């Protein structure tokens, strides 16, 4: 049981890394807490649902379609909202409220358009039968989710560390003011990061029906809570710290399910508070975030 | 480094002060002393540790080594608001007013909280202080609506409202026009004349020259020279450091 919880936790946790990845990128670059992240993920899940049931697209093909679509929607959305928000004195706090409003709009529209019933995509679409590894049986969806997450992390890493645009993104992350002073077009870089964040949420959404059983328009809030735990444990604003956060979350959750199942939902919250109090910058954080 | 034989009876005694940020030693064993009514200039290129020195003395940073003694008392980890009540206060390189409060509220708060017990300030005291710093016409304005020079005056007014015995002045002169500079120098000199000790960090050596003849030159967290300003300009190491640095003055 212990081995299964540990191994399963690592695999399952990879998916939670994917859930947190986009949220963290957006925070790191823009200092914006996207409370609608879980709802964007929900939209990705519904996009995959309809692409499968209406057009017959497999999630593996739906994934790039959704990512490109969300990326292209993300750019204008950024310009519509964020520059104006950034003018405010307390933009970081206001972003919480602004994106709560956006979250309400998305959820309301989704409930009106999609209805409120549970939806999913048949598991056989991903292939049949579990994987066997180290003497353990692992869900096929988990392993595929983990592979997708690993691909996304590597792609993001390559973007941030091996492209010019990524270099500029890191410069903005390090200091917005100095980036501005050195002539970087902050909004262009931020819009790109924002759109990538949405695309990553969409990608996570495409696989949500397999990882979470089923999806409904109301699922966003609980996804957000998990995503917060992941990115804060890993360290807010450091996209690669999300990997550590996701793994810790996954392993922790499965250990709790195994040994104290009734308390399992308490874990992410305790983890989050504990890590913040012990290391206010997250496990891999550098920036001083103390008052 | 340099021995200070009579440091224990001076108002402020800084003894081999060390402050590290990660692996970087921003202060690397600085020692000096300052008596009541004295003015000491602190100069050096950017990053030499001047502001860190002020921040450590005023209690914003806990020191990593050495000691700060004030009026015979070792300050240790005493928090800044307690130091303010002991009589240590400061201004900031870029002014830091309480933006949403009025000018009068800014000063009144410092007078109410920053003085030693029993030394309460009446409205008249505050009005006098505002008048002295030419802020009386702005008393009911929000601090965020002031221009930068006015905010510097406010910074000083707020520091003075606590009746400090030691005032740490961090680049107060930058951005002032010549007339304002002259008035500011006069005002600081008068404060010293009244018995206040001043530690003045300044890039504008001309401004410093009107206040004091005694300076410490710092580089890379160390004190490389102590003496008069005119001696300093002839000191080989000082000249090298300044030419190599990005000093404008």
């Amino acid at each position, binding site marked *: 049981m212990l081995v299964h919880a540990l191994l399963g936790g690592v695999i399952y946790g990879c998916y939670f890394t994917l859930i947190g990845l986009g949220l963290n990128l957006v925070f790191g670059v823009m200092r914006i807490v996207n409370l609608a992240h879980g709802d964007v993920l929900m939209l990705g899940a519904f996009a995959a649902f309809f692409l499968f049931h209406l057009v017959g697209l497999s999630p593996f093909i739906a994934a790039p379609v959704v990512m490109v679509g969300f990326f292209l929607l993300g750019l204008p959305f950024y310009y519509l909202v964020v520059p104006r928000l950034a003018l405010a004195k307390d933009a*970081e706090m206001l972003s919480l409220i602004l994106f709560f409003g956006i979250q309400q709009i998305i959820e309301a529209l989704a*409930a009106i358009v999609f209805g409120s019933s549970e939806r999913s995509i048949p598991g056989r679409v991903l292939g049949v039968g579990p994987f066997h590894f180290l003497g353990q049986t692992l869900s096929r969806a988990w392993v595929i989710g983990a592979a997708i997450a690993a691909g996304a992390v590597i792609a993001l890493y390559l973007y941030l560390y091996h492209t010019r645009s990524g270099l500029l993104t890191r410069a903005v992350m390090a200091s917005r003011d100095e980036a501005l002073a050195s002539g970087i077009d902050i909004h262009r870089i931020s819009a790109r990061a924002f759109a990538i964040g949405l695309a990553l949420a969409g990608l996570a959404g495409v696989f949500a029906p397999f990882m979470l059983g089923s999806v409904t328009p109301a699922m966003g809030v609980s996804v957000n809570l998990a995503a917060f735990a992941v990115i804060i444990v890993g360290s807010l604003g450091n996209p690669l710290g999300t990997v550590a956060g996701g793994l810790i979350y996954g392993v922790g959750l499965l250990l709790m399910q195994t040994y104290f199942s009734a308390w399992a939902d308490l874990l992410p919250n305790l983890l989050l508070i504990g890590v*913040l109090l012990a290391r206010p910058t997250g496990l891999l954080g550098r920036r001083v975030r103390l008052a | 480094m340099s021995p200070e034989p009579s440091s224990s009876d001076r108002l402020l005694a800084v003894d081999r002060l060390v402050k590290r940020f990660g692996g970087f030693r921003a202060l690397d064993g600085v020692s000096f002393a300052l008596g009541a009514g004295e003015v000491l200039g602190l100069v050096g290129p950017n990053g030499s540790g001047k502001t860190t020195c002020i921040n450590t003395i005023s209690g914003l940073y806990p020191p990593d080594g050495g000691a700060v003694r004030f009026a015979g008392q070792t300050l240790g980890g005493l928090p800044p*608001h307690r130091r303010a009540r002991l009589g240590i206060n400061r201004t900031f390189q870029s002014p830091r007013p*309480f933006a*949403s409060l009025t000018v009068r509220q800014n000063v*009144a708060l410092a007078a109410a909280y*920053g003085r030693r017990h029993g030394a309460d300030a009446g409205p008249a005291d505050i009005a006098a202080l505002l008048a002295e710093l030419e802020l009386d016409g702005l008393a009911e304005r929000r601090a965020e609506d002031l221009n930068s020079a006015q905010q510097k005056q406010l910074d000083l007014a707020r520091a003075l409202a606590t009746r400090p015995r030691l005032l740490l002045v961090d680049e107060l002169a930058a951005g002032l026009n010549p007339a304002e500079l002259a008035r500011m120098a006069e005002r600081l000199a008068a404060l010293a004349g009244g018995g206040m000790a001043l530690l003045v960090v300044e890039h504008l050596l001309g401004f410093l020259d009107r206040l004091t003849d005694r300076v410490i030159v710092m580089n890379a967290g160390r004190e490389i020279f102590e003496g008069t300003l005119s001696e300093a300009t002839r000191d080989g190491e000082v000249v090298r450091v300044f030419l190599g640095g990005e000093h404008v003055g």
Partner: protein
Amino acid sequence: MRDFLSVGLPVVAIFALLPLVYANQLLLFNFVLFLILAQGLNAIYGFTGYLPFGYVGFFGAGAYGFALAVMHLAAPPALALLLAGLAALVLAMILTPLLRLSGAYFAIANLAAAQAVYQVIANPALQDITKGPYGVSLASVFAPRASYGAALLILAGVLALVAWLRHGRFGLALQAGRDDPVSAAMAGIPVVSSRIIAWLISALIAGLAGGVFAWHISVFYPETAFDLSTSIFAIVFTLFGGAATLSGPIAGVILLYGLYNLIGISVPQYFQLIYGALIVGLVLFLPRGLASLLQRRGVDVP
């Protein structure tokens, strides 16, 4: 005190008289409840800049404090109310280390803390104490008139408190610490300890609100007491009116909660949509609240 007399007392008086002409007393009660919560949130967010996203945690602690006092101690409602406040106060003391965090970190950690308290209270392992997920019924003390009156008393106290914060030395010191903690410290203000006091006051207010809510509603589940939208409402109302003023949060509650109910009753099918759009518009076009419209013109909004 002048602000309390000119703004606070009329509000209390209006809500004391409205039940005579308007029968949906529960709606009025909810107005009073949000007036209390918005001012409680104002005490911490408006005056120190700390945004407690999990403010509902204190509200829920108060509601359960009240319920436990009634169920296990057979406490009379007045005593149970005090214990409700105490429960929130104790929770706030435990959570004081969160104040070391800032910005979004604080907001999210506080949210997580509220969730954690909810999950503990709703856990079936504690069924004998809290009734776990099965909800509580306080029919024995149900007295809607008395609890409405108690809510008004709490509101009066809270309004007086915030009026004092606005002009008293302590409140100004808090605002100084919010504007610039470093220079506030140099002005001799004990920034950390005064912030903690504001935090405790704010939690106490939410606890009393939770207690009186439990009394008024009398049958509820943990989901009800810890509903996240309670936090969000209090934040949005405060922000909409203008934080760090006395009248701002009042205006915010009356206008926005009024509008909320109008929409809910007239166009229920687009309820959430309109409300979400309203919040987005508010943040983008009026980020410092209604009060800022007047403040910009140099008016000192009470």
